[in-house]
């Protein structure tokens, strides 16, 4: 289950062609799937599939204009995502730094004890 979920999460952005679709939408503002397909080296079907995934992740939303469906980047959501993820990442950095400090302190203490024991052993 874990692997499947992780794969799903990662593939939203780390897939290069999906990232390309998102990049174009960010620059362009709004576009139809048909127009997008003309900008990228992959098929219209692939573009549609990427749009569905991006929409599922809440990064892209669609609206109807006449007979066309236009896709656009959800600005608030993307901005908020960036900020929130950066904050959470910073929080994990702080936790990892604390783990590093604790583990290195424990290790240094163990090593000092071992050296002292060895020295004592030689003396007696």
């Amino acid at each position, binding site marked *: *289950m874990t692997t499947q979920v992780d794969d799903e999460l990662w593939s939203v952005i780390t897939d290069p062609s999906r990232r390309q679709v998102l990049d174009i939408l960010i620059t362009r503002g709004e576009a139809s799937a048909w127009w997008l397909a003309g900008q990228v080296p992959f098929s219209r079907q692939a573009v549609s599939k990427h749009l569905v995934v991006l929409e599922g992740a809440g990064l892209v939303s669609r609206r109807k204009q006449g007979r066309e469906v236009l896709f656009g980047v959800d600005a608030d959501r993307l901005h908020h995502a960036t900020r929130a993820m950066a904050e959470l990442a910073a929080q994990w950095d702080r936790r990892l730094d604390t783990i590093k400090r604790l583990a290195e302190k424990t290790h240094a203490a163990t090593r000092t004890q071992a050296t002292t024991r060895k020295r004592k052993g030689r003396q007696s």
Partner: protein
Amino acid sequence: MAGLVIEREVLIEAPAEVVWRTITEPDQMSQWFADRVDLVVEPGAHGDMQFGDQGGPVVVETVDPPTRFSFSWNHPREVNPEAGNSMLVEFTLTPEGGERTRLRVVESGHELRDWPDAEKQRYADEHQEGWGEFLDRLGSVLAKPSR
């Protein structure tokens, strides 16, 4: 339903066994994670964590010493954690020589959809930056960091 993951890592000047004890022993966990941790480190074990005056459940998922440790948290107390209602924290320890360990953490389960509107509004006021920059920043958070 998709979300985002956070992936960070750090290089520690200590053997994997020492790092393992630091991340799994409740009295050590209470120094880097919650204020208080009541937990038996066994797969499937349910425990409790206290953050200030807030408490929450934690469920141990994987215990594979000294290389893999994972737990779920942030789910409602009365239900079991699963994708969509909780966050999964996965630690991986990789020895780099006898006295050095690379510790990697992956936290998954963050949803974009469910952020409250008030929070969105807070950030919506700061939209001067270009979108490319937002995406670069998002990408840099999501890309594997090297520390």
